[in-house]
């Protein structure tokens, strides 16, 4: 059986993070409610102008281009997520590690070039 005790700090960290995030969300709400004037209007209660309503029928339609941007974002976001551990452990992985990452980046670059060329990055 794997010794799970070394994961305890992570668990503690999770709890603390949870507590803090709850505090950060509800503390300002509570303070502003207690201190400020509370005069809601329809405009004030609506979502940000450029966003989606948070709760509505899940079958509602929206522009498919949002998906495209999101997918591309994930790809390059993950690239960054890989780059960090690679960078700090480069002294361990050596040339092999370097080469591998370069291949990975090259593949991403090909993907980017393709997406660019076929116009996936253009909104219109």
């Amino acid at each position, binding site marked *: 059986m*794997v010794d799970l005790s070394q994961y305890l700090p992570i668990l503690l960290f999770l709890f603390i993070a949870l507590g803090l995030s709850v505090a950060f969300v509800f503390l300002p709400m509570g303070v502003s409610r207690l201190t400020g004037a509370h005069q809601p209007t329809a405009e004030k209660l609506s979502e940000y102008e450029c966003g989606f309503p948070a709760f509505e029928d899940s079958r509602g339609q929206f522009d498919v281009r949002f998906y495209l941007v999101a997918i591309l974002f994930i790809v390059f976001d993950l690239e960054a997520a890989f780059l960090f551990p690679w960078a700090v452990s480069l002294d361990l992985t050596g040339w*092999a590690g370097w080469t591998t990452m370069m291949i990975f980046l090259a*593949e991403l670059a*090909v*993907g980017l*070039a*393709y997406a660019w*060329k*076929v116009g996936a990055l253009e909104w219109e």
Partner: protein
Amino acid sequence: MDYATSLYLTGAEIGLSISGLVLLLVSAWGGARVTRLVTILAAAALFGAAIFTGHLFTELSVPAAGDAFGGLYRADDFSSFAKILIYLAVIACLMITPKYLAANGIYRSEYPILLLFGAVGMSMMVSAVDLITLYIGLELSSLSSYVLASFARDDVRSSEAGLKYFILGALASGILLYGMSLIYGFAGTTDYAAIRLAFIGGIETGALFGIVFVLAGLAFKIAAVPFHMWTPDVYEGAPTPVTAFFASAPKVAAVAILMRIALEPFADHVDSWRQIVVFAALASIVVGALGAIGQDSLKRLLAYSSINNVGFILIGLATATQLGTSAMMTYLVIYVVMTLGSFTALLMLRAEDGRPFETFSDIAGLATRKPAIAWCLLLLMFSLAGIPPLFGFWAKFVVFRAAVEADLIALAAIGIAASVIGAFYYLKFVKVMFFDEAEGSVVKTSPIGQWIVLILAGIIVSPLGYFLNGLLDAWSSDAAASLFYLV
């Protein structure tokens, strides 16, 4: 670590990957003009990969295995056999496609490239001897498949098929990953050999959970009951060439990894998973047969037929013997030929107004209108039904023989009985084609690529196919032997 050896062993995948990337750029800059060129080059790349793999197959001393990248990847006879089959199936898919896609206005160069990446993913799957490699290969092929399913993106059915496939596939991937993480949690490793060592003294309930989850995730990929629900909808909705692809190459890959994972890391716990496999096999045979009977859509019918065939393949897995494994490999080859042949025949049929033939009423009286295609379909359908002396009979025969030799006589008996149900709808094909009144418009001629695939398939399933028996048996046993090499 000897990189040269690793790169050599993975030559086929590397070659295909580079070809895919290059062709991607070519297609981006070349536009619609280069579609045909890209298709041909993709086929050439696959052909090269098949030749290279064949070279590995003969060169690697039987049944020795060559491990690459520190035990993440293995090139052995088993993987080579499966890969060659996959590559050839994909080439066949490339050959039969262009006419259909062009007729529907969706012949784009991304299509061959997606097939190429799918082939890379599948060949990684069959060579994987590590859960991580397995997962990456699986996802690569799956993602290609999701896109391919919705390739006719302006067609509602195609989009629906893609979305359904994607969501259920994601669910299956989640189940698979959860199982892998459980196994990793209990074994402390993702390497097959190491997992086996870890469980050699016994297996915890949690790890059993892991095994079941992994098998369930893979059962989705091969469309075994009860993880088959997506199959009819996706097969029907996807463009027909894509359906042909789904029914052939990915099946081979998924069955192959299922075999490897069942018989390498979990080989000592056959009794734990055999019951599931037996159930899945019988359920697939019965549901596949029953579901197909009521169908009017030919693609849906063939989807159920593939479920039915997977059931027979799983009988071989349930034996967990070398003979059974060898029988599965033989079955896969014959199954791929029959499936590709049937779909090709469907592809070649379209009405005067360009509408593809998709229902029984379309093919009524085909024998008078298109005798060559009708006769090929007759051979293929009789073969699928397992009627001797056609080659499909041999496939079923070897599987049942393996089951009987492994003392799974009840399983074999039920399987044989259930195959009778399946014969009904295969024979219905023949009845409709040869005895019903012809109606509707004349069919247009078909391009040479489709003819080649259809006629080859017809020849192989005909009694002439038995000439291949010697080779096929030898290769299947080599492949099976390499799975049991380390046992």
